């Protein structure tokens, strides 16, 4: 065992470097820039959820004074390229089709044409003059309809990929089917003393970032394009723009703006290639900004779902068998996160025998995008609700039941490999020992607990650390900073070089200004990019030691390093320890500038678990409920800036609470979303929530030099079930469909009381 490293800066809470710009309104987000001569783009969208495009006549729009370019799907080349991005490997043909329909519209709001004009009003009015003739088709509005024998088919060429169900062949809306299994499930269930089976449904929900998608692009006569946009992944945007707009990637530069929230929803391109193509036609910059209704209708929410879960346990609480059948809506094109959902569903528990099947289903709704721990919250809602029922059947404390079955280091994950060090038992023990768990509840209140799991990504990262002659340093990576990663990166450089964190300037590079870096997402930035930052800082330190060796005329290996100073070997004449600033001042005389760099491919950061306790108060006369107390426990490996770690835990919990209580895409029979605005798509506001307490557990991740595990995604996983379990505790009713909105809760309470009165 090595002794744990003592940190000077890691674990402190410095003020974030980009903070002043953000509290003064100076920070530039996607829609905040103006380029000389720029035009405004407007998108014409389909009024039908499912229709064939018969013809598009753009002549009247093109003839409108002030209109400089009109674009339809025919103006763009078809591409077969893909970008590797996990389960939802980005199929750029689908992305291009989704951005601008070619032959069929597949959801209400699907883009069919775009106009660039001198003002946004002219662009909008001209777009309304575009004549689109549709052959309207029956919409597939949900999973049940999609898999019916007589269902309309969205994509005639689609065939089920993976472990197809027996007899499955020919056109289908089931894009893929996966299985995970272990042991003999039927025999295991036969030995169970208690079996609980339930079917759950959740609606489509949106990430709800406050900043709508926005970009500005210019494409010159030479075919070179520059794009400024709000994105989680500038390199993804670059590659997607090149392929979809038909440009050489060498000629596309993407400059990420500050980003006003993403949560997985700002990875795919919806505007950028269109802006480039319009600019190429008009030979002027084109700015495009979505309205909120467009964000809801035509970006990427996460799946609606149907999940059936069955668990069997022995009388002593040992879980012995499980089955789970997951059906996730992909939206208009294949690629829901159902595979991840299947891998996460049972990740917390040692269950010797299980069978999980997962189906990816296309429907006439917007194509889903990643949303914070994609796929896991839906699965956890179902499994953790059933675990709660098992605990009730067995009259067992739900934390004890979970602890009894909790996976630990060396146990085999349901998706195969053995777990390394994980903190599941530690978070459950912390929850059990926390005063929240044993505090009294008031009348009409209930308490629920649930756990959640996410993998946390690794992948490609690059970092550059630039030392200046005054001994300060800049650090540049390619990751847009959504939640405070610049502060974390500055802390890492300070830690490695021993210079004050205020003297480190963290920055986000554009696609020409930083090495290739995968997107900001998957909870990977502090882990994978952080590792690159640490190595780049180490590179600077190694160069400083070499400079000191030169000055002292000793061997490099003999130079030590302590507390930000190079230490001469004992007995060196006229040599005193030199600080970074001292060495930096001599850079020009000892070999020139010092730049440290590192790039790496990191394996996935490794499993992370959280547990949430929710107290809910329910008004039985209105069905209204309110979270009155909430505590989040999470193993984060190592908290580099605890303030922003807590912020991730609190923010994820709040999003999950919204998913549980109020948020949903509401569709009419024609497949038109009826609540595409913040008034009717009800996200939590400040008065809906209490303070959200956080308990940070640190079980260091052996793959990272500080033990960082990643933090952002896990906290959205437990709340759906934690809230539903609290609702069960408060009302005696097991809700299997989200959201637990007042009308649904009231109806169930009235039905239950009618039954008890009748009995």
């Amino acid at each position, binding site marked *: 065992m090595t002794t744990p490293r003592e940190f000077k800066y890691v674990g402190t809470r410095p003020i974030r470097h980009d903070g002043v710009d953000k509290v003064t309104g100076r920070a530039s987000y996607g829609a905040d820039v103006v380029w000389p001569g720029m035009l405004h783009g407007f998108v014409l969208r389909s009024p039908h959820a499912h229709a064939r495009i018969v013809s598009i006549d753009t002549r009247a729009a093109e003839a409108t004074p002030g209109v400089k370019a009109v674009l339809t799907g025919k103006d763009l080349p078809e591409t077969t390229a893909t970008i590797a*991005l*996990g389960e939802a490997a980005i199929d750029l043909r689908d992305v291009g089709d989704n951005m601008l329909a070619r032959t069929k519209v597949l959801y209400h709001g699907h883009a069919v044409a775009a106009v660039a004009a001198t003002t946004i009003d002219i662009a909008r009015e001209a777009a309304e003059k575009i004549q689109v003739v549709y052959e309207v088709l029956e919409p597939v509005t949900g999973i049940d309809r999609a898999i019916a024998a007589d269902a309309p088919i969205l994509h005639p060429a689609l065939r089920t990929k*993976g*472990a197809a169900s027996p007899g499955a062949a020919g056109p289908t809306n089931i894009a893929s089917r996966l299985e995970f299994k272990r042991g003999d499930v039927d025999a295991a269930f036969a030995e169970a003393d208690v079996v609980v089976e339930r079917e759950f449904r959740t609606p489509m929900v949106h990430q709800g970032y406050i900043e709508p998608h926005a970009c500005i692009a210019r494409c010159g006569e030479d075919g070179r394009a520059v794009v400024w946009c709000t994105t989680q992944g500038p390199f993804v945007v670059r590659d997607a723009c090149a392929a979809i707009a038909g440009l050489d990637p060498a000629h596309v530069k993407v400059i990420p703006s500050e980003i006003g929230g993403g949560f997985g929803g700002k990875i795919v391109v919806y505007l950028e290639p269109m802006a480039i193509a319009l600019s190429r036609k008009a030979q002027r910059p084109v700015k495009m900004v979505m309205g909120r209704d467009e964000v809801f209708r035509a970006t990427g929410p996460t799946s609606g779902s149907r999940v059936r879960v069955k668990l069997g346990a022995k009388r002593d609480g040992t879980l012995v068998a499980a089955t789970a059948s997951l059906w996730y809506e992909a939206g208009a094109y294949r690629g829901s996160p159902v595979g991840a959902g299947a891998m996460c569903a049972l990740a917390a528990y040692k269950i010797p025998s299980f069978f999980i099947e997962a189906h990816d289903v296309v429907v006439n709704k917007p194509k889903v995008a990643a949303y914070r*721990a994609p796929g896991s919250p839906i699965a956890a809602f179902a499994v953790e609700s059933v675990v709660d029922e098992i605990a009730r059947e067995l009259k067992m404390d739900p934390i004890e039941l979970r602890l009894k079955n909790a996976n630990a280091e060396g146990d085999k994950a349901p998706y*195969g*490999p053995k777990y390394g060090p994980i903190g599941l038992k530690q978070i459950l023990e912390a929850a059990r020992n926390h005063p929240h768990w044993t505090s009294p509840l008031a009348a009409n209140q209930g308490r629920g607990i649930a756990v959640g799991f996410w993998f946390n990504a690794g*992948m490609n990262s690059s970092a550059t650390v630039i030392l200046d002659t005054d001994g300060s340093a800049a650090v540049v990576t390619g990751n847009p900073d959504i939640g405070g990663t610049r502060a974390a990166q500055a802390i890492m450089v300070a830690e490695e070089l021993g210079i004050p964190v205020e003297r480190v300037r963290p920055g986000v590079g554009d696609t020409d200004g930083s090495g290739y870096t995968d997107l900001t997402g998957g909870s990977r930035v502090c882990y994978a990019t952080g590792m690159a930052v640490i190595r780049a800082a180490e590179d600077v330190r190694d160069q400083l030691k070499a400079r000191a060796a030169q000055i002292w005329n000793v061997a490099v290996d003999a130079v030590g390093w302590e507390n930000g100073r190079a230490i001469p070997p004992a007995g060196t004449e006229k040599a005193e320890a030199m600080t970074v600033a001292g060495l930096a001042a001599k850079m020009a005389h000892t070999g020139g500038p010092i730049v440290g760099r590192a790039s790496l491919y990191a394996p*996935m950061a490794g499993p992370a678990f959280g547990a949430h306790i929710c107290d809910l108060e329910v008004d039985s006369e209105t069905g209204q409920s309110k979270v009155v107390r909430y505590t989040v426990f999470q193993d984060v490996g190592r908290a580099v800036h605890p303030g922003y770690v807590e912020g991730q835990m609190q923010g994820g919990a709040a999003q999950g609470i919204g998913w549980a209580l109020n948020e949903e895409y509401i569709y009419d029979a024609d497949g038109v979303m009826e609540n595409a605005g913040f008034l009717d798509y009800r996200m939590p506001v400040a008065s809906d929530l209490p303070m959200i307490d956080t308990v940070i557990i640190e079980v260091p991740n052996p793959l990272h030099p500080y033990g960082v595990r990643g933090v952002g*995604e896990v906290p959205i996983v437990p709340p759906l079930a934690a809230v539903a379990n609290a609702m069960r505790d408060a009302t005696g009713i097991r809700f299997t469909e989200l959201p637990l909105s007042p009308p649904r809760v009231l109806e169930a309470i009235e039905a239950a009381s009618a039954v008890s009165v009748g009995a």
Partner: protein
Amino acid sequence: MATVHLPSGLTQYTGGVETIDIDAARVPELIAALGHRFPQIAEQLGEMAVAIDGEIYQDPGYQLLRADSDVHLVPRIAGG
């Protein structure tokens, strides 16, 4: 010989084989050997993430294998 655990959901295409020992020094050779043995799922195997002794590589590239490595093929995962 690395011990390779095939995806549990694909055993209908492997004649029920769940685990197999493969002599390969690196991931590409291992995937090629598996594809040769189980041609029905060769294409799918190439698209999977590879867990080597518990560490999951979304893109396994040319990762080296130890003689006693424990290898799992798992679906790739997207993050948000």
